[in-house]
């Protein structure tokens, strides 16, 4: 039932103009070879927003009904935004829910996420705390969002394998490092904490 050929075509088509669009997509080449149902997208933070200069990693899961069911997307990089959970990166965006159309692609979805970064919709929030701050104290919101971009979206541009390497050099076994790092969605500090606590 899963339409591999469409996804393959999408991926090929996708990365033709990455430099201009500021979004890209990659396969996770895990142990079992390329798995087309689990992809990794990136979005560069739009210019003129507190996200500028950041690279945001999106975890993409394709359900078996894709493209007739919407892809599941979630921010791996922590981000301060009214429509994205500051806790777990869950996204509130209509086209990822009931407004999804099979004629949309992963690229249009990622471009929509990029557009969401530049135009938040605080009236339909995913993260109530962020949305409140956005509405009541916009300057403070900008400050926090910028700070988060600096802290999380710039170090996150370091590749997964590099992080693994770093932690392995610290003396942890590679297989454990990989699974822990995956479990915390690539957050080095949290991974280290977990590894140290046993």
């Amino acid at each position, binding site marked *: 039932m899963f*339409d591999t050929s*469409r996804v393959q075509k999408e991926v090929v088509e996708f990365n033709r103009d990455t430099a201009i669009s500021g979004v890209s997509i990659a396969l996770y080449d895990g142990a079992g070879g390329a798995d087309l149902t689990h992809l990794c997208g990136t979005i560069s933070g739009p210019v003129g927003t507190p996200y500028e200069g950041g690279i945001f990693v999106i975890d993409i899961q394709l359900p078996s*009904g894709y*493209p007739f*069911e919407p892809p599941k997307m979630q921010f791996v990089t922590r981000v301060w935004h009214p429509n994205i959970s500051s806790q777990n990166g869950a996204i509130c965006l209509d086209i990822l829910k009931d*407004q999804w*159309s*099979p*004629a949309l692609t992963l690229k249009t979805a990622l471009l929509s996420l990029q557009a969401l970064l530049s135009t938040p919709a605080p009236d339909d929030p995913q993260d109530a705390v962020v949305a409140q701050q956005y509405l009541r104290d916009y300057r403070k919101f900008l400050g926090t969002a910028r700070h988060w971009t600096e802290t999380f979206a710039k170090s996150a541009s370091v590749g997964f394998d590099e992080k693994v390497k770093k932690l392995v050099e610290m003396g942890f076994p590679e297989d454990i490092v990989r699974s822990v790092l995956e479990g915390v969605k690539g957050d080095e500090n949290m991974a280290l904490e977990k590894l140290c606590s046993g």
Partner: protein
Amino acid sequence: MADDEDFPSSSDVEEPEDADCYLSDQYDDNAENVLQYLEDGRQEDCNWSVSSVITRESLLAAQKEDLRKIMELLALSEQHARTLLIHYRWDVERIFELLDQKGKDKLFSEAGVTNLENKINHSLSSFNPFTCSICFEDVSCSVITEMECGHCYCNECWTEHFIVKINDGQSRRIRCMAPKCNAICDEAIVRSLVSARDPDIAERFERVLLESYIEDNDKVKWCPSVPHCGNAIRVMGDIYCEVECTCGMQFCFRCLSEAHSPCSCLMWELWVKKCQDESETVNWITVNTKPCPKCHKPVEKNGGCNLVACICGQAFCWLCGGATGRDHTWSTITGHSCGRFKEDRVKRIESARRELDRYMHYHNRYKAHTDSLKQESNLKETILGKIAISENKDSRIKDYSWVMNGLNRLFRSRRVLSYSYPFAFYMFGDELFKDEMTPQETDLKQNLFEDQQQQLESNVEKLSMLLESDFQEFSDEEVMENMKHVINLSSVIDRLCKQMYLCIENELLYPLQRATHNIAPYKSKGPERASEHSSRFTKATNEDIDVQHGSAVNASGSPSPAKRLSQFQPSSSSDGKHGCSSTKRAKNEGSLDTPLFDLNMPAEVVDKSWT
């Protein structure tokens, strides 16, 4: 009571004032006899109710009826009419209203119906070869389908889309695959493409479309019987009503629980929860036990003095809960000075005790009437036996239908009485309407209500006693006397019930500012029996029975038949009032402004004044 005469036609209601009350009783009794005939199944096609049963077999016909109305009015195909009706929850009246307000184009586009008048036609072959923008494949124009909205994709993709939606339970409204296109897919295309791939799924699609008439329709609900009888009930007009399915299940149409008037749905829900709830037990524990200072288990006070002992061996002071030794007298405990007496705890216990007492008061009475109802249900067999004996006696009296009519009246009024207690519990308690009434108002209204409740109660008990008498051993004169009492009491009780409902609707619930509580109106005959679905009510005379029955009890100010009729008609002549849960109903017009006799008089006095 002679019941060989036909039902009087509506003109007969106009009678001289003084004869009215007696006649009204007679009509009432006639109507009861009709009910009896119905119960016996002697008269089948009497369609006097505003609710109807929809069986699996008649579902299609019921649906077609509404479809046809829309198809005719708007010159639509059946599937467009269906799309429109599903979107507007099968509310034909509402579609008519919106047609006026919004116009055809807006009405259609919001529902996802393509207005074919605006459609541009072009030939699909101009697309050859066609690249499907979903699977990115090049395909021949023979395997692509264009929806009415003009969007075109390959058949494989359409089929996949349909199947995903059907499996997801979203197949009543399958939207076009194009982004932001609101059009609903042509059901004929869905049918043909899906059945080519998987006939089982196509069948499910069909069934879901059919059941939409029940699932998406505020005026139709599945009968809540378990195991399910397979029927659904449709009501016309007010959804605050109590109905009886042909399977015998009686229920509140609004909330689908047992018929609970004069409680509102919310009151009943709260009451059921309260009765099941542990919270009352918790209250009991707060009032009657204290935690042991050592093991913290609740300990009951076990004697008159204030020293209590826990099973763990610890003794403590009941007043303050502090651990003590065992050496004590009636008034003091050695070495213990009760200094930590906590005012607020005592207050809390007092209020918990008051709350508990209040609940127990209402619950005991509610329970007493429910129990009586159960016992009296067993009476039916006994009474049928007595009637059989009486009918075979050498006597002038051959008609004993008054006994069964009296018994039915007893059942119905018992029901009303028992549900009137949870109603009062919430109406005059703090939980729901604390801010709606001042304490003085509450007192006043409670007195008014309880006065009616008590009158009803005493008359119901009298009727119960009368019906238990061994009338099969009576002389003819005694039977006549008994019969007269039963008939009169039944009539008085019916009136009192009606009066109580009106008081609740008009004096108690209607003035509420914030909360909206609607109750099912009083039905002299009990929950309305839903008739088998037939395309339209057929005999005007059937309504006359209801009109007369309803008005006979009121007697004065006969309601205009036209007004009555309008509530049977689901047609365009709507006054815009829907049985929507958030709206407050208009005041009940069936007022009792000119009572026929003083209801404050005991029934015997009323009896005497009649003869």
